[in-house]
């Protein structure tokens, strides 16, 4: 295997492969930073152009794009409180407070290092464990997805902020609006009043509305005196701070890698769970949400680690581990390749070239990220009365670009208003996003499970993975309640 890997690096010396990695990273970085353009869309948009590249160059371009986009999503999350990607939503929780305190570069620096760390470690994990772990992807049937979805929902504890009840209301609202559209199991239409709702509520306008537009509305309230930013520190995190976050990065990387392997779970689930677990494991959970670096490191590590995780079932079984990886299958077929059980046997040079490219791509991403940090921090020096309208225009444009319909823009504005009202009443908006991410998975897998068991609920309690996930979910909730009780007792 080592000699395979070494020979995998050889084609990287070819100029068009280098160009593919650098080009892919640049495009990915921009796609990630633009709210509304996701990694999946970026890959889909660039796919037709790769038709003319060699198979290896095409895959290097797209995987570099994928990785860099996962990092890019955190830039606007940190600087503007607008997640550039659904998976970057948890990054806003602590990244944006850091910016408000005047340390955007610390948050950005942490996020790029965490992304790089996760990228390298998970790629090595991919090289070593792809074949043995492939079976894990198959062990997830409908009951397991249902349990994973429920476990994911427990992350609401970390997002709810001050009030559990408000967090749960957000979750229920999210689950409710998730039922809009054609139901996947029976084909029935639900809550469709206009044609545009056939496919359900799209996530991007919702994300833009709840985060970006409500933020813009909040900014409008501020008086012009506070619009001029007083001081922005350009300092990156210190070595000590990096080392302090090391365990957070390790945890985030592991969570991201394993969730990446499970097809259909998705990177947003990974970063929400990573944030929740980090908060739970922390010795000072009350500080989360005020700008702690661990709160940036864990979800950022997780969403980059998903990239390699998603390649495990893709390369070994031909099953994509994420939406972006599903589009990557298209890249393989355009080149006349079939990812799957025969790929390692028929085209080992391609697979190992891809591995080597992933490692190199992460180095390019780190360099670009570090160079860009100072630049992005400077964006914040633009007075808010100038920056805010620009942000509004770009995000609305992104909304339109995503679906080519004006309806998305109205949707974003509507959710913007909703987000504004929610913030006014101190309702956290993130639980809605969490419920939107998990809702479909929970519902369809629950119903598929019951079709499989012919209506018997015992199917959820017969399978080891399901039971384990239920237990973890239960422990997670119990632990948080215990801690809250204890804190109340200490105070009283």
């Amino acid at each position, binding site marked *: 295997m080592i000699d395979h890997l070494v020979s995998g690096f050889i084609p990287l010396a070819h100029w068009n492969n280098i160009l593919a990695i650098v080009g892919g990273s640049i495009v990915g970085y921009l796609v990630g930073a633009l709210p509304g353009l996701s990694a999946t869309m970026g890959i889909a948009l660039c*796919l037709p152009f790769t038709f003319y590249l060699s198979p290896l160059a095409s895959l290097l371009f797209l995987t570099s794009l994928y990785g860099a986009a996962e990092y890019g999503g955190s830039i606007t999350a940190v600087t503007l409180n607008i997640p550039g990607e659904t998976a970057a939503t948890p990054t806003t929780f602590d990244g944006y407070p850091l910016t408000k305190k005047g340390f955007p570069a610390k948050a950005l620096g942490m996020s790029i290092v965490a992304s790089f760390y996760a990228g390298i470690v998970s790629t090595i994990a991919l090289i070593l464990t792809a074949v043995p772990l492939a079976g894990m992807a198959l062990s*997830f049937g409908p009951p397991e997805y249902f349990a994973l979805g429920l476990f994911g929902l427990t992350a609401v504890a970390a997002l709810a902020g001050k009030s559990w009840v408000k967090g749960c209301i957000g979750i229920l609202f999210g689950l409710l609006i998730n039922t809009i559209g054609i139901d*996947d199991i029976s084909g029935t239409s639900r809550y469709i009043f206009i044609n545009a709702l056939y496919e359900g509520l799209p996530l991007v306008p919702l994300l833009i509305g709840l985060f970006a537009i409500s933020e813009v509305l909040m900014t409008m309230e501020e008086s012009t005196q506070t619009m001029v930013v007083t001081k922005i520190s350009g300092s990156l995190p210190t070595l000590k701070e990096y080392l302090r976050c090391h365990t957070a990065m390790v945890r985030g990387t592991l969570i991201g890698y394993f969730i990446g392997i499970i097809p*259909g779970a998705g990177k947003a689930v990974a970063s929400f769970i990573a944030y929740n677990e980090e908060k739970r494991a922390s010795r000072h959970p009350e500080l989360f949400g005020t700008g702690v670096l661990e709160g940036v490191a864990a979800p950022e590590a997780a969403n980059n680690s998903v990239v390699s995780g998603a390649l495990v*079932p893709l390369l070994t079984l031909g099953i994509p581990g994420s939406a972006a990886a599903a589009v990557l299958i298209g890249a393989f077929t*355009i080149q006349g390749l079939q990812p*799957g059980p025969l790929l390692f046997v028929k085209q080992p040079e391609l697979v190992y070239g891809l591995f080597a490219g992933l490692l190199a791509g992460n180095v390019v991403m780190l360099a670009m990220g570090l160079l860009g940090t100072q630049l992005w921090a400077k964006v914040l020096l633009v007075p808010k009365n100038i920056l805010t309208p620009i942000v509004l225009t770009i995000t609305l444009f992104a909304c339109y670009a995503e*679906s080519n319909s004006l309806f998305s823009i109205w949707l974003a504005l509507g959710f913007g208003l909703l987000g504004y009202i929610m913030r006014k009443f101190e309702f956290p908006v993130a639980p809605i996003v969490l419920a939107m991410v998990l809702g479909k998975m929970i519902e369809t897998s629950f119903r598929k499970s019951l079709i499989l068991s012919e209506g018997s609920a015992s199917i959820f309690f017969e399978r080891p993975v399901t039971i384990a996930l239920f237990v973890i979910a239960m422990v997670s909730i119990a632990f948080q309640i215990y801690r809250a009780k204890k804190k109340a007792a200490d105070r009283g």
Partner: protein
Amino acid sequence: MNFIKRFGRLFIPGALLTVLFSGYSLGSAPAQAAEAIKFPIKPITILNSSPAGSPADVMARQIVQHAKKYLNQPMVVVNKTGGSGGVMFASLMADQADGYTISTITSALITALHGDLKKDFSIDQFEFLAHVQKEPFCIAVKSESPFKTLKEMIDHAKKNPRLKIGGQATYSALHLLALALAEESGMPISYVPYGGGSEILTSLLGNHVPVVVTSPTTMNQYVEAGQVRILVTSGEKRLPQWKNVPTLKELGYNIVITQYRGFAAKKGLPPDVRAILVDTIKKAMAEPGFKEYLAKNSQFAEFMGPEEFTAAVRADYEYMGKLLQKVVKK
């Protein structure tokens, strides 16, 4: 300053001359064009309702690549995804029927006209240009499965609790295939709808369902790797790569369901434009490069011209409509 003045002095007469000459050339263009203008004079857009990399998209891109030498203008594939094809239909119908916007068409898209799309579109609005590919569906089990033949599977299903069969979305062609077989053979089944090809595959390989209905393309390499066994296919004839796998028809079932991929346009194309488009597609299909792509992906091509293809599409549309009424709308 001096430089700018001199530049201006040169520039203005230059610009005037250009305008003058372009006026002349415009004036003379129609006279020449009467004989020279030949379709196409600008790039042709091919709309595709599935994302880049999907089978119909790859087919369109291969045709585009191999049609290059037969057209003096490029063809461009544009992916218009969403709404079970509705988004693509809408933009096809929004353009002129002049041959500069055509689309790929598949059996799934035409079958979808029986569903919610019926409100906005009808099969009569299309002109079918050329049939390119044809592929049946198949019923697959894992190699370890006790079912060696379709008969064993059906016998087992009749004596045991409902057989679970995994496949694509409710009311899709795969769903109809499973329901039709269940009805003809009298075996009780539960259909588990999955999101797409790779989800169906995962459910089979992970032992979540014992049997799946799917397209041969997604199964080829797993059969080759010895992980999957194919019990039956749903076409008129056996597939060349699986010579020993019988068809449903051979086994005595009156079920033939195939999916086709080809090209269509908005109704009302000028006959000469249609002839050029059809001829180009036909020539591209005969290119060695195109044949190589087919062989690599175990795909089969069969050219059909407008009349033949229209008849085939209509027949399939009626058949699926009847099937839908028979098995679903009871």
